[in-house]
C-alpha cells in the first residue's frame, strides 16, 4: 500500500505550483482509469473502440494483469482456474459485444458442442452455462495484450484524486518504479473494487483479543488453504458462516475433500437468516428458496443487467431504489444441482449439519474455537470447531478506503441510499465535476445507484459503455455507432492489436 497523504496537507483544488512544490514527476493523460483491474480493462476497451491513442490513455494500479486481484480473491474463495464462476456466457469481460460468448468459445476449444448446447437450452433443459475461471483469465490476457495494456499501464498506487485549477483532476500516486507522481487528467474513471476483506465483527474481535489463535478464523476471501490442508490430516469440525455463493463454494471444497481426498471433516453450517420458503408475496416477484438458501442463478435477477428490472431501477430514487436492490439481491446462491445433492448426501451421513441462529460469543479452546449461538428456536448452543470460515463477504463501506474517503470528504462526492458512492445513471460521481472534466466510478462501490449488477463483468462493461456514451455527448470522444462497433469487433475477432495511435494494426 502507498504512503498515505494527510488530506489536510493537500489543497482541495490543486494548481501546477502545488504539484511542483511536492516534487512529483508529472504525467499528462486525457483519459485515466484508476485501479487497473477488470473495471479498467472494460474502460480501456471502450476508449480504444472510440479511437483513443496511447498518449491520452493511462491505467494506473499496482498489479500487472487486470485479472490479478480477481483471480486472487476467486482462488482464495475456492474457485481455482478449472472451476466455474457465477457469470453467464455472454458476460465476456474481454469484449463488449458478448458474442461469441464463453460457451461457444469453450465448445470450439474443446471440439465438443456440449457447452454451446447448454447455453442454447439454459435454463430450461440445463442449468445456466458458466465459464471456467481460467478461460476468463486467458481472455483477459489476450485482450490486454491487444489493447496495448503494457504501454498504457502505470504501475502504482493512487493516493488521492483532487480537482485541478481550471478543470480536470490531479491524481496523486506512488509509482512502483519511480516514486511519487502526479497525473493531470481531464477525465478520470475509478474502479478499485472493494476496500478490502471484511471479517465478521465478532471474529475480528476474536483475532484482536486472541492473536495466537487468530489463524483459527478466516474470511473465505483470505488465503486459507492451510485450513483445507490441515483438515486432510485429522478428523475435525469446521464451522462455516454465511449462506451466499461463497459459502456454497467453501462447502463444496470441504465436502469434496471428504468424498475424494480422505478428509474426516464434520461441517457445521450456521445461517443467520434461514430461508425455507420462496421469498416475496407477489407471484410476479418471488424468489425460489430451499434448505435455508435463497436461490437465483446470478447475484441479481438476469433482467437487472439489461431488461425489465434494469429499466425499472433506472426510474427509482432514494429508499425505493435501495428497497428494489435489496429485494433482487441480498444473500443468495446459485441453485446448482450438484451442490444441493452433495449437501443432502452429507446431511444423511451426519457430515453436514445446519444451524440457524445468531452468534453470541467466540472464544478460543485448546485446539480450536468455541462459538456460542443463540439458536432461532430459543435455545443456546455451543459449537467447538477447529476452524471457523466466514463466508459473508467483502468490505463494502467506502469510507474505509482512503481514496473514496477523501472523495467523500473533500471533493463533493456523496453516499447513495445503500451507503456507497453516489453516481448518476451515466456513472459520473455525483458532485465531483471539474470544469470540462468528469469523474466516473464503476464496480462494487457504486451499488445503490441506478444499476444493480455493478459488481459483475457485464456490469463493469455496461458502466464503461455508459461512460463512453456520456463522454461522446460532451464531444470528448466520437460515439461508438454501428460502423465503429463492427470494425472494433472485427479487430477483436481477428486479434488485431491497437498501435500507439489507437489504430487497429
Amino acid at each position, binding site marked *: 500500500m502507498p504512503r498515505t497523504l494527510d488530506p489536510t496537507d493537500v489543497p482541495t483544488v490543486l494548481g501546477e505550483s502545488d504539484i511542483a512544490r511536492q516534487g512529483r514527476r508529472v504525467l499528462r493523460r486525457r483519459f485515466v482509469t484508476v485501479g487497473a483491474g477488470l473495471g479498467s480493462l472494460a474502460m480501456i476497451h471502450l476508449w480504444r473502440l472510440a479511437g483513443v491513442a496511447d498518449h491520452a490513455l493511462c491505467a494506473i494500479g499496482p498489479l500487472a494483469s487486470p485479472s490479478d486481484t480477481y483471480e486472487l480473491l476467486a482462488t482464495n474463495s475456492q474457485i481455482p482456474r478449472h472451476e466455474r464462476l457465477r457469470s453467464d456466457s*455472454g458476460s465476456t469481460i474481454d469484449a*463488449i*459485444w*458478448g*458474442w*461469441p*460468448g464463453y460457451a461457444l468459445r469453450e465448445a470450439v476449444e474443446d471440439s465438443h458442442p456440449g457447452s454451446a448446447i447448454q*447455453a*442454447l*437450452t*439454459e*435454463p*430450461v*433443459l440445463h442449468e445456466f452455462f458458466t465459464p471456467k475461471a481460467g478461460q476468463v483469465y486467458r481472455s483477459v490476457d489476450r485482450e490486454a495484450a491487444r489493447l496495448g495494456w503494457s504501454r498504457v499501464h502505470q504501475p502504482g498506487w493512487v493516493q488521492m484524486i483532487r480537482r485541478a485549477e481550471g478543470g480536470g483532476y490531479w491524481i496523486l500516486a506512488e509509482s512502483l518504479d519511480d516514486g511519487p507522481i502526479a497525473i493531470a487528467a481531464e477525465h478520470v474513471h475509478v474502479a478499485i473494487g472493494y476496500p478490502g476483506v471484511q471479517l465478521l465483527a465478532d471474529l475480528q474481535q476474536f483475532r484482536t483479543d486472541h492473536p495466537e489463535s487468530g489463524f483459527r478464523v478466516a474470511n473465505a476471501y483470505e488465503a486459507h488453504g492451510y485450513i483445507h490442508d490441515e483438515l486432510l490430516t485429522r478428523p475435525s469440525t469446521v464451522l462455516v458462516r454465511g449462506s451466499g455463493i461463497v459459502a456454497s463454494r467453501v462447502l463444496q471444497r470441504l465436502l469434496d475433500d471428504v468424498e475424494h481426498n480422505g478428509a474426516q471433516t464434520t461441517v457445521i453450517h450456521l445461517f443467520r437468516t434461514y430461508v425455507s420458503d420462496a421469498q416475496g408475496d407477489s*407471484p*410476479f*416477484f*418471488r*424468489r*425460489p428458496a430451499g434448505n435455508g438458501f435463497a436461490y*437465483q*442463478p*446470478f447475484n441479481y*435477477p*438476469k*433482467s437487472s*443487467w*439489461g*431488461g*425489465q*428490472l*434494469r*429499466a425499472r431501477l433506472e426510474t427509482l430514487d432514494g429508499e425505493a431504489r435501495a428497497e428494489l436492490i435489496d429485494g433482487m439481491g441480498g444473500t443468495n446462491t446459485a441453485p446448482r444441482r450438484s451442490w444441493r445433492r452433495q449437501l443432502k448426501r452429507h446431511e444423511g451421513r451426519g457430515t453436514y449439519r445446519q444451524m440457524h441462529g445468531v452468534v453470541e460469543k467466540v472464544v478460543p479452546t485448546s485446539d480450536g474455537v468455541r462459538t456460542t449461538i443463540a439458536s432461532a428456536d430459543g435455545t443456546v448452543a455451543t459449537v467447538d470447531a477447529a476452524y471457523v470460515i466466514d463466508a459473508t463477504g467483502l468490505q463494502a463501506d467506502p469510507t474505509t478506503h482512503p481514496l473514496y474517503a477523501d472523495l467523500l470528504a473533500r471533493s463533493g462526492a456523496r453516499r447513495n441510499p445503500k451507503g456507497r458512492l453516489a453516481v448518476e445513471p451515466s456513472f459520473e460521481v455525483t458532485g465531483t465535476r471539474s470544469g470540462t472534466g468528469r469523474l466516473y466510478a464503476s464496480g462494487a462501490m457504486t451499488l445503490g445507484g441506478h444499476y444493480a449488477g455493478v459488481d459483475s463483468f457485464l456490469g463493469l462493461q*455496461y458502466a464503461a*459503455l455508459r461512460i463512453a*456514451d456520456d463522454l461522446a455527448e460532451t464531444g470528448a470522444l466520437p460515439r*461508438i455507432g*454501428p460502423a465503429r*462497433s*463492427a470494425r472494433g*469487433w472485427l479487430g477483436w475477432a481477428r486479434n488485431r492489436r491497437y498501435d500507439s495511435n489507437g489504430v487497429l494494426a
Partner: protein
Amino acid sequence: MTPTLLGRIQTRWVLLWTIGLAWVLVVGPFLPLAGPSVGAVWLAGFRTLLIVSIVGTAWEFVYHGLQQLRWDKDWPTLFGLLVGLNEGAVAYVLLRNGLPLAIPGLTVAPFVWQFGTVWLVVWAVSNGPIRVLFPRWRFAGGRFW
C-alpha cells in the same frame, strides 16, 4: 435474453424487415419448393413477413405476460426458438384462409421452408451477431431507440 415489451416489438419488426426481408429476397427463390416464379416467392414471402410482424406483435404481449412469472424476467433462448411453432401454425392458417394477405394455393411444405428458415435466421442473429452492430441493444432490453 432479457427483453422488455417495447424491446420485443422493436426487435421483431427491425429484424424481420432487415435480415428477414433480405433472406426472402435473396435466398427465398432458391429454397426447395419455392414456387412457380421469383415474383410469386417474393410476394408470398412479403405477406408472410407482414403477418408474422403484425400477429407477432400480439404474441409479444402473451410472451411478456408469461415472462412476468419468471423470477429473472428473462426469456430463455430456447423459448425464442420454440415459439416459432405456435406462431408458424397461426400464420399458416391466416395466410391460407381468406384474409386480404392470403396466399392462394399455399401448402404446408413451402410455407415451412419459407417461414422456418426466416425464423431460424432471425433467431440466430438476435442471439449474438446483432450485438456486433448494436452493442447497447442487449442492455436496453432489445430496444433500438
